[in-house]
């Protein structure tokens, strides 16, 4: 496999893990726009340990999860007192604070960043992304997953049903932060270099978009969202010249057409995002959709029981 495709596979796997990290709080009704902050924490923990102490990947990644998770847990208590747009701003501010601290830290390389000696190929991120996906599917099938979705739908009633609202929110936020940390650690080992500029606000916005557009009602959503928005720009990169030619010929222009650069694919990406928001605001994968696909399996099972 070429370096280009293995790179895309790594990015895809990292984005899937990252998206699940944001999905968990969002599924409980907490929009988290601080994804880049937690990812940066994980990335710098992994980079620092790898660069200074030559720790292997098997040790840096668990610590990246732990540090981001514990920080997420501690930050959750004050930050989850905020609601709606204030919570979004609060998480956003958290990411900015993390970026500011790292940028001004000598030990973490400041604006220069840190090199990461230990490199991982696409295999490790892929396997971890598969494990994280299974973990989140498992979590969503438990009573914890049930109350997460209940808290998302109606906090007052969930409370009266006996759900520990704050406990559920803090747990979902902290576990999500840990997953963002894992995504960050994998980022560090994949690109073998971390600099804080890579963990900017656009990263937080993009990962939240993956989740919201993929769908927050089921664990399928982040998987589809991350895959779609990671692969679409690459697909456009390949298809764009043909697409330009086709559009040009519609307007009667013949011969070679060349756009000034390939930033046009971001225009198309934006267009797709807007169209999704208009026609599918609940996201690509919704609960009624997964239930619609289920009866066939159920009917088969029921038929099997009767036959047996």
């Amino acid at each position, binding site marked *: 496999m070429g370096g280009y495709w293995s790179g895309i596979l790594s990015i895809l796997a990292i984005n899937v893990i990252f998206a699940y990290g944001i999905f968990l709080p969002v599924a409980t009704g907490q929009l988290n726009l601080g994804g880049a902050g937690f990812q940066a924490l994980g990335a710098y923990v992994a980079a620092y340990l790898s660069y200074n102490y030559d720790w292997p990947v098997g040790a840096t990644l668990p610590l990246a999860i732990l540090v981001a998770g514990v920080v997420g847990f501690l930050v959750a208590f004050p930050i989850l007192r905020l609601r709606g747009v204030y919570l979004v701003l609060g998480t956003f501010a958290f990411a900015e604070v993390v970026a500011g601290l790292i940028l001004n830290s000598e030990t973490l390389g400041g604006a220069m960043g840190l090199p990461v000696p230990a490199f991982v190929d696409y295999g490790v991120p892929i396997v971890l992304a598969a494990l994280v996906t299974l973990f989140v599917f498992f979590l969503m099938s*438990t*009573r914890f997953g049930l109350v997460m979705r209940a808290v998302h739908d109606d906090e*007052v*009633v969930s409370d009266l049903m*006996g759900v520990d609202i704050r406990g559920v929110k803090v747990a979902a936020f902290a576990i999500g932060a840990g997953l963002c940390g894992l995504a960050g650690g994998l980022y560090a080992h994949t690109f073998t270099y971390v600099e804080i500029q890579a963990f900017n606000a656009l990263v937080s916005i993009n990962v939240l978009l993956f989740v919201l557009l993929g769908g927050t009602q089921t664990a399928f959503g982040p998987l589809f969202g991350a895959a779609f928005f990671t692969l679409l720009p690459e697909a456009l990169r390949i298809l764009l010249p043909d697409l330009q030619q086709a559009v040009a010929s519609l307007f009667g222009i013949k011969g070679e057409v060349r756009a000034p650069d390939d930033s046009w694919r971001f225009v198309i990406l934006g267009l797709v995002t807007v169209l999704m928001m208009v026609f599918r605001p609940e996201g690509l994968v919704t609960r009624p959709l997964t239930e619609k696909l289920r*009866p066939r399996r159920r009917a088969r099972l029921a038929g099997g029981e009767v036959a047996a």
Partner: protein
Amino acid sequence: MTAPILSLDGVSKSFGGLDVISNVGFDVAAGGRTALIGPNGAGKTTLFNLIFGVYRQDSGAIRLEGRDISTVPSRRRIGLGMARSFQNIRLMPHLSVIENIMLGQQARANGLGAMLTPLSLFGRTKWRVEAEALLASMGLGTYPCEVVATLPYGIRKKIEVVRALAASPKLLLLDEPAAGLNPSETANLRDFLVEIADGGVTLLVVEHDMGFVRSLCDHAVVLNFGRKIYDGPTARVQDDPDVLEAYLGPRHAPAAAGEGAHAA
């Protein structure tokens, strides 16, 4: 009369100078079917919210089986043996019917082990089996996997009652269960509730439909402007001059008293 399961004593609540509940006290007999009625804005739903701790009362005591529950946080009150439905259906719209019922079991499943057990990933757990049996016993066995938002109003109304039952309550508080139902659905709901009451659950029902109240409840408490104006048998509530005045205005009270006029 048996010992009351729920007892309110001098309960008052005001919001910013507006007295919504003023010195209200009454008993709900264990095993009985009590109606809580009154014109719109009388404070019936507020009283439910006080009983469940959504708000804390300013003064007075709320006792469940003799124990003052005023300081118990709202989250823990369902675990004391009471559950409720809501005036406007408040099922979780994105959850399936069976998931809503399993949410109703939450008060009995709060430990870490119970929280991290998959509900139906590897075969059916006891929670799932129990919820399905409860649904089936209430004649709703055909709907377990439907997402609630897609179901008709009358069905959702019943599912909300079943969700409350999933907590295995001794006392069930229903806030306008018949509102918005057509006559046949109302009759159906009445039979449904009688069955629940016969199973040993005490009912306290807020309702406007007097025909429904008469056919379901033996005892009635009437509120008007946050004060209790009647506390007695349902059969005589429409002969009470205070009640008639509350519903029809002072001019009509004496004339209407002998006619058994509609209170709703």
